[in-house]
């Protein structure tokens, strides 16, 4: 009997197993330092971002959270004088290496910004623009991805009858969900959100929040937010940044009910910042 069990445990499974207790890491950040010229904005932080979770980055203005977020898909490259040292490991590659194909990286790690920024084109073209750039030309395929992306972004029902109208005719909340759909269309694995609903009214904000929670089933999401309630509502993990340091990184429940660092508690309860 014992031999039988032993033999059974030695069988190689036809699929990869992941432990219930060990969440899978999608991004491993190690000793990351980011400089703007001489000024150091991020002081050597290390953390693991888990797969299929919403990770919130919180902290007062100038704490380095957006700088950190932008380094994940190399958006900081566009800022003159910005330099990152350390490692961000994604699929065994260091994102910060010079030989990384940044265009391909940004396809895998998409980003949505604070202010909705649809192209001044039709709703349909907003989604297909990047796809055409990536070589997808077939109309039926494009139609399929447009519908799929808009459905995932919970926008399809609202726009399906006016796909060829200007994206600028949409409301702010709809524009932001269109930007999310545009990101999803590229089939990313990670979505970076930089205060995605700070410019939205409460109803649109609620829709974007519901969408984020829904999207984590398929994507890993990292969100920068100044809204503490938003962080507590939608994220699974929260990282608190202060003056370029990572002060505390824990489950959102712990951060918002019983944080271990006094500074974290003072910040989340609005005592400074």
């Amino acid at each position, binding site marked *: 009997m014992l031999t039988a069990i032993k033999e059974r445990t030695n069988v190689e499974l036809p699929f990869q197993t992941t432990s219930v207790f060990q969440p899978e890491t999608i991004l491993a950040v190690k000793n990351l330092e980011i400089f703007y010229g001489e000024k150091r904005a991020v002081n050597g932080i290390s953390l693991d971002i888990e797969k299929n979770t919403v990770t919130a980055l919180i902290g007062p203005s100038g704490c380095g959270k957006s700088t950190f977020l932008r380094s994940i898909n190399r958006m900081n490259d566009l800022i003159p004088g910005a330099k990152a040292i350390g490692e961000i490991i994604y699929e065994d590659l260091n994102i910060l290496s010079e030989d990384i194909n940044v265009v391909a990286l940004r396809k895998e790690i998409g980003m949505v910004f604070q202010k909705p920024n649809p192209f001044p084109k039709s709703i349909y073209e907003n989604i297909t623009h990047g796809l055409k750039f990536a070589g997808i030309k077939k109309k039926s395929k494009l139609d399929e991805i447009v519908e799929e992306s808009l459905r995932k972004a919970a926008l399809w029902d609202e726009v399906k009858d006016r796909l060829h109208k200007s994206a600028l005719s949409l409301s702010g909340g709809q524009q932001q969900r269109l930007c999310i759909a545009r990101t999803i269309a590229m089939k990313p694995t990670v979505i970076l959100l930089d205060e995605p609903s700070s410019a939205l009214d409460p109803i649109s904000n609620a829709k974007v929040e519901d969408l984020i929670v829904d999207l984590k089933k398929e994507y890993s999401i990292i969100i920068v937010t100044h809204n*503490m*309630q938003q962080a*507590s509502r939608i994220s699974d993990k929260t990282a608190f940044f202060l003056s370029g340091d990572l002060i505390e990184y824990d489950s959102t429940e712990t951060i*918002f*009910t*019983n*944080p271990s660092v006094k500074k974290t*508690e003072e910040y*989340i*309860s*609005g*005592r*400074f*910042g």
Partner: protein
Amino acid sequence: MKRMNTRSNFDNNLKHLKEMLLKMAGISEQAIKDAMLALLNQDLELANRVINGDNAIDDLEQEIHEKALMLIATESPVARDLRRINVALKVSSEVERMGDMAVNIAKSVVHIGEEKYIKEIVDIPQMMEAALEMVTDSITAFYTEDITIAQKCAEKDDAVDNMFGNLVHELMTYIPQNPNSMNQIIQLSFICRFIERIADHSTNIAENVIYQETGKRLNLNK
């Protein structure tokens, strides 16, 4: 230089909530003392005053609950702030129950009426003194947010429980010789039970203070 507090309005409201509770605890404590005096002096008028005075405690509890809910709704408290409000709600309920115990004692005094006591009332006031000390400790711990006082308060509960056991046992021994005083013996046993409950409510308050300050739930009421 004193650091600017960004939520002074919220802090003032939290302080006010605590002061409302302190006021409520003061009234409950007085009701317990009055009930005990009524027992000692067989003062039925005072007993009735305790019974009729409970509305004030209930009204204060309502006020505290409304204020706490208003703060949750408007201030979105988190972490210790949230625990403070949660604990204020819990403590107000414990204090309200203490007030009810005072009323129960007063009602037992009324039930005994003017019937001569079968023995001198000595041990019950001693037990009450121990319980009242716990009440004071628990409320002080709550007001000063001091877990050392809270722990000391909870440690005293065993002594009150022992007094309760001994007193009831002793009261039972009076039954054979005093078959006509059954009502009095039962009411005095009830009173011991009510005092023991007051001590338990104090322990619950102490547990809540520890939870408020540490985020950890302990069961001290064993």
